[in-house]
């Protein structure tokens, strides 16, 4: 069956039933987190921007921060019929777009912090990260297929890989 695509914007978070392709365009330091349950045939994607909400007020989008997005997306998966031991995760993104030797600018390494926090939160919930393509200095566009459960990662000048 043909898969329709849904494109997620910054800080969006969505859980869907197969067959739907989940897409996020042009991730830089942001993370594309995918969680899926092949038995229940559901999958979720979050476009995470920052590691830690630091108790920021509740009006913010839940998908924006790793510490709020991970528990929320897992909860949403469970609500839609997944069981926790079957949920697996894939992660892409978290690049450092610019490096400035000698400059003290904490925000330039936010990509690595996004990866670390996302993995930490997943581990805390007992969810295994099956595959990841993170770090480096190039942006990524990702597509997750709910027919073969593969994450296609496109990087400028490096072509396409499937993880």
């Amino acid at each position, binding site marked *: 069956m043909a898969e329709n695509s849904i494109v997620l914007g910054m*800080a969006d978070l969505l859980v869907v039933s197969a067959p739907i392709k989940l897409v996020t365009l042009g991730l*830089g330091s942001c993370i594309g987190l995918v969680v899926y349950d092949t038995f229940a045939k559901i999958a979720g994607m979050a476009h995470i*921007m920052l590691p830690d909400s630091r108790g920021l007020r509740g009006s913010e989008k839940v998908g924006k921060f790793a510490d709020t997005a991970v528990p929320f997306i897992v909860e949403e998966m469970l609500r839609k019929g997944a069981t926790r031991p079957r949920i697996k995760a894939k992660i892409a993104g978290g690049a450092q777009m*610019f490096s400035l030797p000698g400059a003290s600018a904490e*925000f330039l390494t936010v990509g690595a912090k996004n990866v670390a926090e996302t993995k930490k939160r997943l581990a805390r919930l007992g969810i295994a990260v099956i595959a990841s393509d993170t770090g480096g200095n190039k942006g990524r566009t990702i597509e997750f297929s709910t027919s073969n459960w593969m994450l296609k990662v496109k990087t400028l000048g490096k072509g396409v890989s499937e993880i």
Partner: protein
Amino acid sequence: MADLTAFSDNQLDAIREVGNIGTGNAATALSSLLSCMIHMNVPTTELVSIYELAEHYGDPLQTVGAVFVRSSGSFQCSLIFIQPEQDALKLVELLLNHQFGSFIPYSELPPEITDSALSEVGNIVLSSFLNAINMLLGTQHQISVPGVAHDMLSSILDVVASIYGQLGETALLVNTELSVEGLDDGRRISGHIILIPDPDSLNLLLEKLKVI
């Protein structure tokens, strides 16, 4: 930090004027570097949703060439000189032609040369921009080594989201466009300078401009 959405039109105008002075200086520097006419538009101060930064500037997937610097000192900020990829390469070709008499088309230049030249143009444009601002404010600053990237617009602008995202959902940007005109082949090379004041520096800016 000041609540961005509560900024008055007067305050936004004052910040825009800072951009105006910076841009004038940057245009002059670029003009003498290339011996070309540089056209500048009137800068704008923009409050942009951090979720729609890329869309605000164009096609999120468009490939761009960008030079990024950090300025530390009393007025802390980041600056990006961002161009469509073709324009960035064309600018490098023009610079090498003008400064060294090179006739190598940009498509044949090795990437290391292109990046090095681009980072130098970006450095000159952004330092001139900053110098004028610091002169106006009476502040001292130190500018970082420039960083260069060629990538999707959306990926590049993640850096803005990571500066403003921790504080809310809106970014304050001073945006201006420079273009090189009167080229032999009738083409126009354009580039945007985006000033991203650190949220903590906004109050200082308004204080110095005497528009609290």
